[in-house]
């Protein structure tokens, strides 16, 4: 009988596992905060698509959204919350387990 795989696919967080949401969380993990347009360019999404994904992340409490005016222009700034950072490190750990399991 082989070893039990340490990888549990149920532990993968669906909120951040989608490619665009994953990109958003990865980018935000490396910066203090980012502008909406900056994120859009980095993950290669349209405004509407990114807004929809950000809403899901915000509803899950993973991303904080700050809206204000700079030089009389609206500006949306996003950052990863502590819960989002925890979800991100958990996702990384799960993916590592998956790779380890595949290597067995």
């Amino acid at each position, binding site marked *: 009988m082989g070893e039990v795989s340490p990888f549990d696919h149920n532990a993968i967080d669906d909120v951040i596992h989608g*490619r665009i949401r*994953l*990109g958003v*969380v*990865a*980018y*935000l*993990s*490396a*910066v*203090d*905060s*980012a*502008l909406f*347009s*900056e994120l859009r*360019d*980095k*993950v290669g999404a349209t405004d509407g698509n990114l807004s929809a994904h950000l809403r899901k992340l915000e509803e899950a409490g993973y991303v904080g959204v700050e809206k204000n005016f*700079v*030089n009389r*222009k609206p*500006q949306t700034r996003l*950052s990863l919350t502590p819960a989002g950072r925890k979800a991100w490190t958990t996702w990384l750990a799960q*993916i590592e387990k*998956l*790779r380890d*399991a*595949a*290597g067995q």
Partner: protein
Amino acid sequence: MNQASAASDDLAYVRQLAESGARAPLIGGRFMAWWGFLVAAGWTAQHLAVNGTIGDGNVIFGIIWGSFAILGMAGQALLARSMGPKAGAGSAGNLASRPVWAACALTITSMVIGVALLAQQSGYQVFDWIVPVAFAVYACALIVTGRLAGERIVVLAGYGAAAMVGLFTAFILDPNRYLIAAAGAAVTVMLPGLLLLRREPLAEE
């Protein structure tokens, strides 16, 4: 595509994105170029004043460095106002940049006040020692922000500034010491500032 190769693909994607955030270009090039130019111009004027080419008496030094402070602050305010929101402003390098350079300005100002008070109280003049202190703090700021942003040219400029501390000290009795300092400021602060400015992302909409 199996699960493991999908996981590898995901990891490569997130690594690339995370690295692009962590290594965002420094966006303070305009400030470095401006202050580097002013310091180089100030030390060139100081050289001319020390050697008697311009001015008469100590008033000229007050004019040079008073103009430096006024022009510097006015330029800083104008440049800050003209700069729109930039991608990468939240990176570690850019976050560190402002307090590190503010600490440099504070340290140099403290040194200037100290040597001015000493000169007033005892007539003992050690103004020349402001230069190595300035280069020492430039070296710290350039190396720290350059390393955080992965900007090799800024780190090299930092090593150049560190070398200028010793070089200026070795030439501190030379009549051309302020020309050496001016060239050092142009190469280690103004030039990397201009290079960063060229690579800076456009302001975000």
